[in-house]
């Protein structure tokens, strides 16, 4: 991935911009747009005092993205306080996940990170009251058909997304980090043992934030923000390593407790392939002992490298699309057992489009 990719080169060694011509800047701009990392690139340029190398005709892309970022931070902070106020009445203190957690924890990867929804985690017994409280306070659930309702409620780890009618921000309420029917299972009570508190808010511990981010990237089968997430992981792990040089061992131990070793293996392998991260040999040795089929692992890693490559995403090459499809199948294979997967995919392929078509017809008739 490295050789042809200015964005990756820049993220590893920002100083290289001092030798760049207009051509490389142009490539950087394109790759920063497609990966949604424009505001982060701006942060890194600023932190390393490299803004002086940015050509005049290019600079506005970065400064505009920074403005969007600042406005977005403010919006999310407001939303966090509105959510907490709504749930306080039911005595529920949600745990914030993903982007919102990075913001609250002031993680390095919050810098220049834009995201669309606020994600929270509550224990399953609080799920009903959480949903009701949000509903009473102006959130509305997405309209889903019977199949999707069952899909979310009985199989998945979150309920259908809800939108705040005043701010138009979406909230995803989770009660686990992986689908209930998934082949990789998590006892979510274990997350509660290590919860951190920042100010008035709860977030997952550093290790769990990393493992959750990796689960999301490597199991969801969607890679719209894939490269951004990959770089988030790199920054989170770097944060951890800067505090404790044995951080990867700690992280590995935690992954064992949660049953996420394989996911951590893929995550750290990608870190080393893409960002040259030095992985602790104690950890790699453990992986080598435990990986059952190294050949499959190698293939899967190759597929990830394809779909996470910003240049491939820009041109949407044949290889990119094939890899995307194979990972989509893989993620669903892990997500649900075979006897659920096949009816689900058939439903999504035929019944959902048919229902949408019927709905559109009906709307047309009413319109005329």
């Amino acid at each position: 991935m490295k050789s042809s990719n200015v964005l990756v080169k820049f993220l590893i060694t920002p100083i290289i911009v001092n030798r760049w011509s207009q051509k490389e800047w142009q490539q950087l701009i394109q790759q920063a747009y497609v990966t949604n990392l424009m505001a982060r690139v701006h942060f890194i340029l600023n932190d390393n005092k490299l803004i002086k190398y940015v050509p005049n005709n290019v600079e506005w892309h970065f400064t505009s993205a920074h403005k969007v970022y600042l406005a977005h931070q403010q919006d999310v902070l407001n939303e966090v306080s509105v959510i907490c106020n709504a749930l306080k009445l039911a005595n529920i203190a949600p745990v914030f996940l993903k982007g919102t957690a990075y913001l609250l924890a002031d993680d390095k990867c919050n810098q220049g990170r834009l995201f669309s929804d606020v994600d929270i985690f509550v224990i399953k017994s609080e799920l009903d009251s959480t949903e009701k409280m949000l509903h009473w306070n102006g959130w509305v659930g997405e309209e889903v058909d019977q199949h999707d309702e069952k899909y979310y409620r009985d199989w998945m780890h979150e309920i259908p997304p809800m939108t705040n009618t005043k701010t138009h921000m979406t909230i995803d309420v989770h009660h686990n980090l992986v689908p209930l029917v998934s082949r990789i299972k998590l006892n979510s009570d274990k997350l509660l043992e290590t919860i951190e508190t920042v100010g008035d808010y709860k977030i997952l511990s550093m290790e769990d934030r990393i493992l959750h981010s990796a689960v999301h990237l490597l199991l969801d089968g969607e890679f719209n923000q894939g490269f951004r997430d990959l770089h988030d992981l790199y920054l989170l792990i770097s944060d951890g390593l800067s505090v404790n040089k044995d951080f990867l061992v700690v992280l590995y131990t935690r992954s064992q407790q949660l049953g996420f070793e394989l996911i951590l293996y893929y995550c750290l392998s990608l870190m080393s392939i893409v960002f040259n991260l030095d992985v602790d040999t104690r950890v790699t040795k453990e992986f080598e002992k435990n990986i059952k089929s190294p050949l499959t692992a190698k293939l899967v890693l190759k597929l990830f490298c394809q779909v996470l490559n910003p240049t491939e995403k820009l041109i949407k090459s044949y290889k990119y699309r094939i890899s995307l499809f194979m990972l989509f199948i893989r993620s669903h294979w892990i997500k649900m057992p075979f006897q659920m997967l096949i009816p689900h995919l058939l439903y999504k392929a035929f019944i959902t489009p048919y229902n949408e078509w019927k709905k559109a017809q009906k709307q047309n008739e009413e319109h005329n």
Partner: protein
Amino acid sequence: MILKEYSPKEIKKLLISSGLSFRVGRFTVNLKSNISNVIKGISKLYAESEIISQPCDFSVTLNRSTGIRSFVKPQAHFSFNGIEPFSPLPVSQAFPLFEWGSNWCVTNHCHQYLVIHAAVVEKNGFALILPGQSGSGKSTLCAALVTIGGWRLLSDELTMLRLDDLKVVPNPRPISLKNQSIDIVKSISDQNKFSSVVKDTIKGTVAHLCPPKQDVLDFDVLATPALIVYPKYQKDSECYLQELSKGESFIRLADHSFNYSILGLEGFEILSKLHDKVECYEYCYDGDFKEALNLMDSLLPS
């Protein structure tokens, strides 16, 4: 070098290979496309546009669907650096899609300006801002002011205010006309300056009018905002011009801005300062251009 110096064949060759880099208003765009009506539309409406050899502000592609959809009701896909912000449209609407896509590029990324949904024209260095939703007649009035009123076109759709000194920054692009207004504007301007008419789009029937050559060249000549007139087209109605309070106009303009909330305090301050400088009116007109042009001229500061 300008675009019309290229033969259609050369334009086509660029569009399907490395992309055609040219000036679109004040921005520069690298466009790749394999759709013939895009080539035709660009050649006509951007004939006077400068060819760019530097890297561009926006890289976009407009391509036909691949696979089965390339045979059955083919569609045009607009993509900005690999991102597709819109659903694809029938391939016959590809040129309007380029215009809408170019507007999207500006409204979503150019926060170095306050971007307002308004037409804007200039005379004697003063800018007249015409905010309005679709159907208010702002583009029609703008076309009349530009073609027969002696005003310079700054933009028919997006008014951009520079944040430090409140100058209006021109973005002279083809004027977008809809439905009846196409024939009305055709009756007062050169028929050859229009793109082909495209029917059944989401906005109805649309056509684009070439911006005047000199206005395209003057994209870097800024203007001082002096007037905000909210046009309201009403057929067979009594025309009236009514002064609007600064407060009312402030709220309306914030509502018409694409990035007011992104700019935050900066946005608030810009609109306050702007309203210290301008006069605001609401103008109901019946489509009588002669009267409208006289009236707009009379409002200009002397």
